[in-house]
C-alpha cells in the first residue's frame, strides 16, 4: 500500500516538473512559432508570435553564421502578438538558421533549416528526362558546430571505454 502511494507521489512530482519545464521554456512570455521547421529558399513561411512588448514594432531577422537578412517588420497587438507570412530569400544558402524576433528588449528565437529546391515529384519518378545542370559530386559545406562539451564528452566516453576494455581484458575469470 505504502509502495503504491509513493509511486503515485513520484508520478505527481514528475508531472509537476514537466509542467514547470514547459512554461519556463518560453521564458517570460516572448515566443515565436514557425509553420514549418524546414523550408526551401524562395518559399513562404508563416510565423506567429506573442509576448513581444505592447503594440511594439517587431523586427524579424533570419540569421546564420554566414548569412543575415531582415525578413519583415510588423506591429504587434496589445499583448505583443503578431502573425505574418514572410518569404525566405532565394539567395539564402542551405543550412541551419535562426529566426529572431526583436521588440525593444524582448527577443524570441526559433530554429529553421533552409534547403535548396530539390527535384520535384515528376523528376523523382522519371529521372531520365531531366537536365544535368547543377549536379555536384562534392560535399555540402555544413556548419558542424557542436553543443558546448559535446566533442569533449565523446572523447571522454571513448577514453573510458578503452580503460574499461583494458580492465576487462586483464581481469581474471
Amino acid at each position, binding site marked *: 500500500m505504502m509502495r503504491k502511494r509513493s509511486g503515485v507521489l513520484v508520478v505527481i512530482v514528475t508531472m509537476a516538473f514537466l509542467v514547470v519545464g514547459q512554461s519556463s521554456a518560453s521564458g517570460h512570455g516572448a515566443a515565436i512559432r514557425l509553420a514549418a*521547421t*524546414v523550408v*526551401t529558399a524562395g518559399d513562404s513561411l508563416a510565423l506567429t508570435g506573442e509576448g513581444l512588448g505592447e503594440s511594439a514594432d517587431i523586427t524579424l531577422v533570419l540569421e546564420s553564421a554566414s548569412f543575415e537578412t531582415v525578413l519583415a517588420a510588423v506591429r504587434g497587438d496589445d499583448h505583443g502578438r503578431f502573425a505574418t507570412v514572410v518569404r525566405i530569400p532565394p539567395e539564402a544558402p*542551405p*543550412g*541551419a538558421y535562426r529566426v529572431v524576433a526583436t521588440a525593444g528588449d524582448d527577443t524570441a528565437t526559433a*530554429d529553421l*533549416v*533552409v*534547403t*535548396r*529546391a*530539390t*527535384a520535384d*515529384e515528376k*523528376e*523523382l*519518378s522519371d*529521372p*531520365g*528526362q*531531366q*537536365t*544535368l*545542370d*547543377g*549536379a*555536384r*559530386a*562534392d*560535399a*555540402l559545406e*555544413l*556548419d*558542424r*558546430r*557542436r*553543443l558546448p562539451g*559535446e*566533442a569533449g564528452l*565523446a*572523447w571522454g*566516453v*571513448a*577514453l573510458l*571505454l*578503452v580503460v*574499461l*576494455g*583494458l580492465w*576487462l*581484458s586483464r*581481469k581474471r*575469470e
Partner: protein
Amino acid sequence: MQIEDQAIGRKTTRLTDRLALHGLDYAIPTVATRLPYFLGAMTLTAIVILAATGAYLAQFYQPSPFGAHASVVYIIEVAPFGDLARNLHWWAANAVVASILLHLTWVFYRGSYRVPRELTWWVGVGMLGCLFLLFFTGTTLPNDQEGFEALAHNLAAAEWMGPLGVVLTHAFTRSTPLLARLYALHISVLPLALFALLGVHLYLIRYLGIHTHPGEERHGATFRKHLQRMTAYGLWLVAGLIVVSLVWPRELGYPAVAGAEVTKPPLPFLWLVALENQWGITALALSMPVIFLMLAALPLVDRRAVDSRRGMRWRAGGALLAWTVLIALTLIAALVPQQQHLGM
C-alpha cells in the same frame, strides 16, 4: 571481516543465480580464444551501435523526397549529438561490412560451413545479404546526389529484373514514394529479418559448438572468459568508432539533381562500378545474386566430412584470390573517371 566476506559471497551467488550466469560457464575449444573468433562478435557490437544510433536518427529524419535532405542537414547542424550519431552510424555500418567479410573469410578458410554446420552457414549468408541491403538502403536515404544516384541504379536494376523487381520500382504504388518504402525496409523489415537470423545463428553455434580440427583442444576454455574478452574488444571497437567519427565525419552531398550521374558509391559497393563500367546494368543486377548463390552452394559442393591440410591450403588460396579480385576491382573503380551507366 570474515562475516563481511561471507555476506558478499552470498550476494554474488544470489546475483549469479538470478542472472543464470552459471549457464555461461560451459567449455569451448581453446582455439576459440584466438582473435579471428571474435570477428562475429565485432559484427554484433557494430550492429548494436547501428540500432542505437539509428533509433536516435529516426527521431529527426523525414523519409520523403522533399524533406529528406533538409532533415539530414538538420541532424548535422541542429540536433543535439545528431552529427556524432550520424557519423557513428556511418562508421559502424562500414565496420559491420568489414568484420562480417573477414568473419566469412575465416569460416570459409576453416571449412566450418561443412557437415553438420550447413544451416549455420546459410543463415550467416542470409545475414550478410540483410546487411548489404541495409547498407544500400541507408545510402539512398539522405537523398543527396550520391543517394539519388543509388536510387536510380536500384530502379534500373529492378526494371531489368522485370516482374521480380517491381516491388522496388515507382510502378508498385503511387501512394508512397520509393524513398519512404526503402526507409521502411531499412528500419523495420531488414532489421527484423536480421535479428531473427541472428537468433538462429547464435542458437546453432551454441548447439553445434565451435568447429575444431583434429588435434585441437575441444574443452580448454570457458565461454564466460571468452565473453569477457569479447566485451573488452567490443568496448574498444565502440571507442575506435567514436574517435573515427570525431576525426572523419561523414559528408553530405548537395541536394540531388535528377538525371545526373556524377558520384561513385561508398567503398563496400565501389567494386560494382568496375563491373558496371564493363558490362552495364546487367552486371549490377546479376553480380550480387551470383555471389550469394555461390556462397549458398558451397556446403553442397564441398560435402567431405573430414578435412585435410590440402583442403585448407586450397581454401586459403581461394580466399586470397577472392580478396585480390575485390580489391583490384575497387581500385579500378576508384581510379577510372566516372561514367554514365543508366542512359539518362
